[in-house]
């Protein structure tokens, strides 16, 4: 808070807002842990070349299917064991985070953006525009996604970029449908009518009055879709059209470890755990974002935390009363 004393008027204010947000995040323990885990996983993905103990593609037939260190026969050379080709599972999990996070996050962002724009336009304009856009969505939904993916990949050739494009093309429709239905109902709300009678331009109505109502459902949908994308990417990679060896991803490892589930559970468990942890922590963090963007919820949270602090220090309070 010493920043406020600085002579520049603009930056300290921004810093103060940022500081306020950080302290709010710190007070919501679940949200903070979620944020921390996301940060750690992202850091792990970015720093993979330096922290991974082995090359994730290096095979060692002598050390096939070694169990993790805490089981009998496990050793410290391969903390999480090795797979059917003797590759180090820990290194694969660390490297796999890269493509999984990259593909998952970019697809959710790109498909989400396309879907939100289409949904907003369809819901706000209504009439014929809505009819045309929603029929396009219907056609796309009824067209088998995997066929589309196979078609596009065989034309463009498999790569991470292709994966992102392909999965975005096949996954934007759900956002469009959900956004459209919310926009159509919010458009009838009196404060939106008030805004248009007041003389707001459509753009302002959409961004100031309609879009904020989409934050909560879109966060939820985006997180659900993230898991979907990770699994879709695994399926496509499993067919040999997605992430190409020697590169790897969590989804690919889960898919290929499936055959060994009864003799070497660690192949499927650790990358799977990576997916679970990522989704769970995004969820916790998103919940914090949701509450923070809703003034009413936010005020409730402040009230609770103040009440909680009073519970923790009842002795002090009593002293004050006396």
């Amino acid at each position, binding site marked *: 808070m010493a920043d406020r004393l600085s002579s520049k008027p603009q930056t300290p204010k921004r810093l103060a807002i940022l500081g306020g947000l950080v302290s709010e995040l710190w007070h919501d323990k679940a949200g903070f842990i979620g944020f921390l885990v996301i940060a750690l996983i992202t850091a792990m993905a970015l720093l993979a070349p330096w922290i991974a103990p082995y090359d994730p593609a290096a095979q060692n037939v002598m050390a096939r299917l070694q169990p993790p260190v805490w089981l009998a026969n496990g050793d410290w050379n391969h903390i999480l064991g090795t797979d059917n080709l003797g590759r180090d599972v820990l290194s694969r999990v660390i490297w796999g985070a890269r493509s999984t996070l990259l593909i998952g996050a970019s697809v959710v962002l790109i498909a989400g953006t396309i879907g939100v724009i289409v949904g907003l336009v369809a819901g706000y304009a209504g009439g014929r525009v809505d009819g045309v856009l929603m029929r396009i969505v219907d056609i796309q939904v009824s067209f088998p996604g995997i066929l589309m993916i196979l078609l596009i990949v065989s034309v463009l050739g498999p790569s991470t970029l292709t994966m992102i494009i392909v999965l975005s093309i096949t996954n934007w429709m759900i956002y469009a449908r959900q956004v459209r239905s919310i926009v159509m109902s919010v458009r009838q*709300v009196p*404060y939106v009518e*008030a805004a248009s009678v007041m*003389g707001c331009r459509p753009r302002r109505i959409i961004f*100031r009055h309609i879009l904020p109502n989409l934050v909560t459902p879109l966060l939820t949908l985006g997180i659900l879709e993230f898991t979907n994308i990770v699994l879709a990417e695994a399926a496509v990679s499993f067919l040999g059209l997605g992430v190409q060896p020697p590169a790897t991803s969590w989804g690919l490892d889960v898919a290929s470890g499936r055959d060994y589930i009864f003799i070497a559970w660690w192949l499927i468990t650790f990358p799977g755990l990576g997916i679970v942890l990522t989704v769970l922590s995004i969820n916790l963090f998103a919940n914090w974002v949701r509450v923070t963007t809703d003034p009413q919820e936010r*005020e409730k949270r402040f009230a609770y935390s103040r009440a909680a602090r009073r519970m923790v220090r009842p002795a002090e309070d009593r002293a004050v009363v006396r």
Partner: protein
Amino acid sequence: MSEHETSPTVLPTLRVRSLGVNYLTRSKGFWSRPRPISALEGVSFDVRPGETLGLVGESGSGKTTAGRAILRRIDSATGQIIFKGTDITTLKGEKLRRLRAGMQLVLQDPYASLNPRMRILDAVAEPLIVHGVVKSAEAARDQVVELLDLVGLPADAASRYPHAFSGGQRQRIGIARALALKPDLVVADEPVSALDVSVRAQVVNLMQSLQRQLKLSYIFIAHDLSIVRHISHRVAILYAGRLVEIADRDDIYERPRHPYTEALLSAVPVANPALQRARERIACEGEVPDIANPQPGCRFASRCPLATQMCREKSPPLVEVAPGHSVACWHRS
């Protein structure tokens, strides 16, 4: 207040001439075309500067539709809307948007009429921002505080969110927002019917004192006749999308001409049990006409005690029976 000017030299704030609005039915089945339903037909009235026109009618009588058509929220099928001397019936785009600064709306439900994610400051400053009066909400703070003071709210209300306020306070905020651009005309669509009785009087009195201070014209849409009597200078009665009677307040309450107006007024309780018991209550038999399947003749004919064959065949024109008092009835004009 009853000595309002009837001289034609005063340019009316709003002049509505034979306004009609059609709604389209949802088409039944794939092949049938949507059919227009006439929700409002041949409505004409003037609102002079500083005057309140009470628009009264039962549910579905078209009073809200009339308000929305005047504000150009919905398009009118026939007629003319003249605002301060300019015909605004077919205004479009940026011109229409500019026009909106001159006429504002106060909504019925104070809980839904404010965006829950916007501070009061942002909500009240929004009209100023969209019409380019100020650059940002912060820059409008002084004006907003002034407006809040005008409607009787403390200055610190500006930085709070709508959920911190009661219904009556929110309605005051809604009024402050409507007044931000200093409009000439405010359409108040049942502004007090969602409020507690104890708060109603406050809001109505506030609206009246603001009218005197700012020379506002109101179109006050309501179904509560006692409040309409309190606030209006002139009263227009709508029935099934048609204007049946329009007159100065005291004329209409003391000398109603149309049988529907009589029935409506007889339903208002009097705060004197002896008098109330002695009063004759005119109850209307029959059904409200289905405006989707309009019958020829007077719309009130199916319930009217005076109805004759002529009423069922030809619809009565609005005729001036006394200065400033017009009625649409074959038998009473």
